[in-house]
């Protein structure tokens, strides 16, 4: 490996930790990222000449911290000089001493909580988290989210500025808003995963790679916050969901429904990891969703699915996070556990939901129930309606096929 390659690899591995450690000193994630980049540039200049140091990660960390402390001192001197002429700047905390491993963990947590701060729009939280914690380049994020690169670059710049402007403290929240702040972090990771998951049908490999990025973030968070059941719940949910990715698309990239998936293609290791994470999960919304995904994962054949448990879990989920989409999923589970007759009223009750007005899965599920009840004409109309609502061409073909076969 050339020195340049070695620098880049080590930097990629260490960058989140370096940015986090520097941010604690300078109290600004934007400046912290610049300083981390400066340390990378210094390494790229020096290592090809001097050789790669024994502990390259430590070298990068020390270089970045030195620069951070210098910057803070210069600011302090500047503030003092200003004060001498009768002006004041905000207090700058004294630079911290080198961190023990546990401090690094705290720094990383501070970094992710800051990147996911509610002062930022969801899109900005996602971009900043992938950039600072996930180590993705702006170009990679732009490609993954099908957005122009300048747009994403702007989004990240503005997000850093917004954090500075709002004076967001670089800390892990304790106290009243901790729960809400943690759910913002979990939501960002979940959204990143879903962006990749919904794109797994297709030939673009960058978007599905988001699943891996999100999964890694969830694993990191579970290792950093071992006492938070919902963090394990999210990790378990994503491990289970990711285990099905190889089976979700057919040979021509067409989506394959859960019932039709070749379960031998499910990744056993990820299912095993999901089950392990479940042990530490709790009873919050991600944990309940993970339990549902776990029920599917445990069924060796579709016919073995424990729909009674799944229907019960959806009942619990509806109480935790009431939403028409969850209610629709519950109806599907009830139809499998008790039959289509029991589920139809649940689906019909959703007919007036504004949130589901253009949601293709509502008529698709209703069509399925009607078909099972032998009401074929009505079922066909529902499938055709569903086909007209979906934006995914492959899904449309699937639904039109069902309409034709009823």
């Amino acid at each position, binding site marked *: *490996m050339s020195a340049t*390659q070695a620098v880049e*690899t080590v930097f990629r*591995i260490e960058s989140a930790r370096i940015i986090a450690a520097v941010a604690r000193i300078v109290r600004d994630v934007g400046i912290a990222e610049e300083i981390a980049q400066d340390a990378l540039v210094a390494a790229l200049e020096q290592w090809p000449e001097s050789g790669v140091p024994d502990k390259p990660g430590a070298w990068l960390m020390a270089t970045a911290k030195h620069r951070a402390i210098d910057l803070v001192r210069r600011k302090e001197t500047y503030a003092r000089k200003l004060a001498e002429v009768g002006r004041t700047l905000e207090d700058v905390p004294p630079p911290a001493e080198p961190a023990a*491993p546990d401090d690094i963990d705290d720094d990383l947590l501070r970094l992710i909580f800051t990147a996911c701060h509610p002062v930022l729009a969801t899109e900005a939280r996602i971009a900043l988290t992938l950039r600072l914690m996930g180590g993705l380049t702006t170009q990679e994020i732009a490609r993954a989210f099908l957005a122009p690169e300048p747009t994403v670059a702007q989004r990240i710049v503005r997000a850093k500025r917004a954090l500075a402007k709002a004076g967001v403290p670089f800390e892990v929240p304790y106290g009243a808003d901790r729960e809400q702040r943690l759910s913002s972090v979990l939501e960002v990771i979940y959204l990143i995963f879903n962006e990749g998951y919904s794109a797994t049908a297709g030939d673009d490999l960058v978007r599905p790679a988001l699943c*891996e990025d999100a999964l890694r973030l969830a694993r*990191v968070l579970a*290792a950093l916050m071992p006492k938070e059941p919902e963090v394990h719940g999210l990790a378990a949910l994503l491990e289970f969901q990711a285990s099905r990715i*190889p089976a979700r698309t057919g040979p021509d990239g067409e989506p394959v429904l859960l019932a039709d998936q070749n379960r031998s293609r499910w990744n056993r*290791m990820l299912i095993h990891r999901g089950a392990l994470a479940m042990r530490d999960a709790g009873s919050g919304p991600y944990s309940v969703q993970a339990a549902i995904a776990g029920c599917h994962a445990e069924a060796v054949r579709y016919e073995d699915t424990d729909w009674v448990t799944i229907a019960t879990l959806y009942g619990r989920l509806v109480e935790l996070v009431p939403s028409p989409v969850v209610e629709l999923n519950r109806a599907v589970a009830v139809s499998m556990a008790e039959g289509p007759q029991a589920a139809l009223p649940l689906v019909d009750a959703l007919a007036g939901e504004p949130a589901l007005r253009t949601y293709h899965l509502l008529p698709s599920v209703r069509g399925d129930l009607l078909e099972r009840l032998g009401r074929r004409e009505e079922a066909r109309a529902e499938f055709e309606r569903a086909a007209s609502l979906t934006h995914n061409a492959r899904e449309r073909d699937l639904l039109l096929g069902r309409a034709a076969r009823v």
Partner: protein
Amino acid sequence: MPRFLSLIRIDEQALPANTEFPPEFGERMGALMEEITKAGVMLDTAGLLPTSEGTRVTWSGGKLSYTDGPFTETKEVVGGYALLQAKDKAEALEWTKRFLEIHPEEWTVGAELRQIDGG
């Protein structure tokens, strides 16, 4: 993000029986394992019992044959494994290097890094 299987190879015969791990080695290993887990890279890892406890089963010419360990004809046998997930091979190699570097200098340990097909 590709997955890699790192096969840790040791020369069983060169290791004295009941090798005592130096305590600081255990600490270094613990710290590295924690670090690699917190980086979201380590998926699974374990050491294996000596080959004297192992059995090889071979299917050849339509017949099964069994060979009980120890396997002395191969100098280096798999003594453990680590399953890693990294952005690329360079990243997996960097972690592998860190793993090897914490071993005592007088030991000879090898790691064979193999990418998992389709993983």
